[in-house]
């Protein structure tokens, strides 16, 4: 039981099913993500795209099918869940930074108490990643003192400090003012060029075109279409996809 050592795809999802009460949120979703692959998931709201990636680190519990992350199956075994969460980083729509800690502390706390890194080592790691997201000078500030774009970059740095093998992005730019979107996307592009395995739920089609290996379109809890970006944007087969694309690219 040591996630990461085994070979095979980074994430494999087979026949995933999920209900909220009587609402059938996910219907037999199948998705396989290779190591180093960049996937962009899109689709209308309520299509289940966020639910899929939240199942990957067990923020949501699936009730049918199998999820295997880095060779470990995600089931009721508590140790498996802990192990997988350590290897999978996540960035949220609303940043979810810890408001009672400084930016630096936000980045240091998990490595220190989860990975048991000594303080000095955690701090050098944290400063390195803050440098990477281009806000080293904000380290001693509190999240409330930063702009939305800066906060989201701190959130990315915080997730990276755990040195995860997979990064999940849940609509990272949806809560941002338009002028701050690009600074976050730039960081994500750099990350992609470093070879990180990434699954991004986003409507930023420009980003998808630039970095994605595959674009996945979901609607009504199902994967409707799955294709490399150039194919996805130019010759998609499905009506629903076409309608969605025309709405989102628009005018």
């Amino acid at each position: 039981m040591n996630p990461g050592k085994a070979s095979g795809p980074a994430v494999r999802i087979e026949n995933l099913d999920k209900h909220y009460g009587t609402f059938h949120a996910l219907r037999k979703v199948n998705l396989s993500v290779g190591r180093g692959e960049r996937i962009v998931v899109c689709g209308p709201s309520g299509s289940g795209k966020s639910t899929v990636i939240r199942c990957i680190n067990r923020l949501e519990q699936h009730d049918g099918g199998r999820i295997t992350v880095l060779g470990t199956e995600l089931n009721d075994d508590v140790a498996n869940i802990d192990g997988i969460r350590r290897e999978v980083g996540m960035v949220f729509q609303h940043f979810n930074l810890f408001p009672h800690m400084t930016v630096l502390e936000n980045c240091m706390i998990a490595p220190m108490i989860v990975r048991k890194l000594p303080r000095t080592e955690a701090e050098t790691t944290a400063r390195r990643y803050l440098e990477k997201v281009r806000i080293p000078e904000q380290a001693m500030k509190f999240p409330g003192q930063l702009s939305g774009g800066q906060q989201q970059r701190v959130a990315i740095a915080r997730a990276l400090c755990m040195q995860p093998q997979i990064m999940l992005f849940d609509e990272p730019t949806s809560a941002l003012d338009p002028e701050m979107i690009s600074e976050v996307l730039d960081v994500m592009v750099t990350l992609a060029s470093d070879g990180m395995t990434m699954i991004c739920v986003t409507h930023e089609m420009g980003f998808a075109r630039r970095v994605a290996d595959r674009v996945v379109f979901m609607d009504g809890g199902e994967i409707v279409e799955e294709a490399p970006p150039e194919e996805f944007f130019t010759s998609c087969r499905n009506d629903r996809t076409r309608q969605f694309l025309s709405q989102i690219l628009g005018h």
Partner: protein
Amino acid sequence: MVSLLRNQKVRNALLQVLYVGALAALVLAGVVIARRNLAEQGITSGFDFLYKSTGWDVNFSLLPATANDPYWWFFLIGIINTLFLGTVGLMLATLVGTIVGLARTSSNELARLLGRTYVDIFRNIPLILQVFFWYAVITHLPTPRAAHEAWGMMLTSRGLYVPIPNVGAIAFAAAILAVIAAIALPVWLGRTSRLSQPFGERLGIQLAAAATALATAAVILALGRLPDLPLLDFPALQGLNLKGGLRIPPEFSALAIAIAIYGGSYIAEIVRGGFKSVGKGQMEAALSLGLSPWRVFTLVRLPLALRAMLPILANQYVWLMKATTMGIAVGFTDFFMIVALTINHSGQTLETIGILMAGFLAINLSLAAIFNRINKAIALKGNQLRA
């Protein structure tokens, strides 16, 4: 085994069973030990004792009570005493609280200062200290022989004596109900048709209703009058003691005064909060419609403020009901004091504690039910923006 413990579902089930099981075991062990200890003292468990006579008396009761009455009767007396003291206390407290609260929201600086001083002083002194204080004041009043007298009432260290009509008990109760109706009817009538009738006409109907109810009360009193006695029975000195009239014992007065003053300071804050929550916009809108300040107050400000106050007020009333248990400090036989006396005299500890819990649960739940109904009846329909 180890892998089973790592399973989330197994873990969750185990935790729940352990928690509930441990608590149940704790309670059960307590009951078993208590029963054994009590059995050693020759006390058998069960509720048979409720039908035995108590052998002791209560000092305050609205119902006839003697030392020969059974325990269940005394519990009933206790509950009624608690409800009676609680009701009197919360009515007085509401009266005090409304006056002080209005002073605190008034536009007059001096009135505000006065209200604030009142709240700051009486809120910050424990209720039981105030109870002790008033009890000491009343019991240090002159003896009946040197009583203060005013309007036929006598103020003595043995209590306050007030004149009482010479009528039968049932007629007296009916008359009180009629008087309550005289107050409640106009309010109810005013609620049902607020704006559909002209103001003057509505007032007329309300006054007529009140007058009818009061007249009924007078007729009931006249019919139920005891023969060959004057209508009012005045207290008078006979030998060393006062005879006649109704004696309000010092225990009751001390508790009622203290609850009125202390509770009033809390209710004043609730009243103030309620008025503060009414948005300026609504009042300005009403004023700009050309309504007079008085009608803005009765039609807009008061109804909105009442709605905001009610839930908090309900909590405060429940608290005041529970505060009647301070009766034991001065020897007023409320429900809790009856419970304590029963444990002392009969030794039926577990059963009596059970009755105590059930009694207070019933009081709390019924108060909550009443307030929920009122709340629902007056709640603003739909999701209105309240600024």
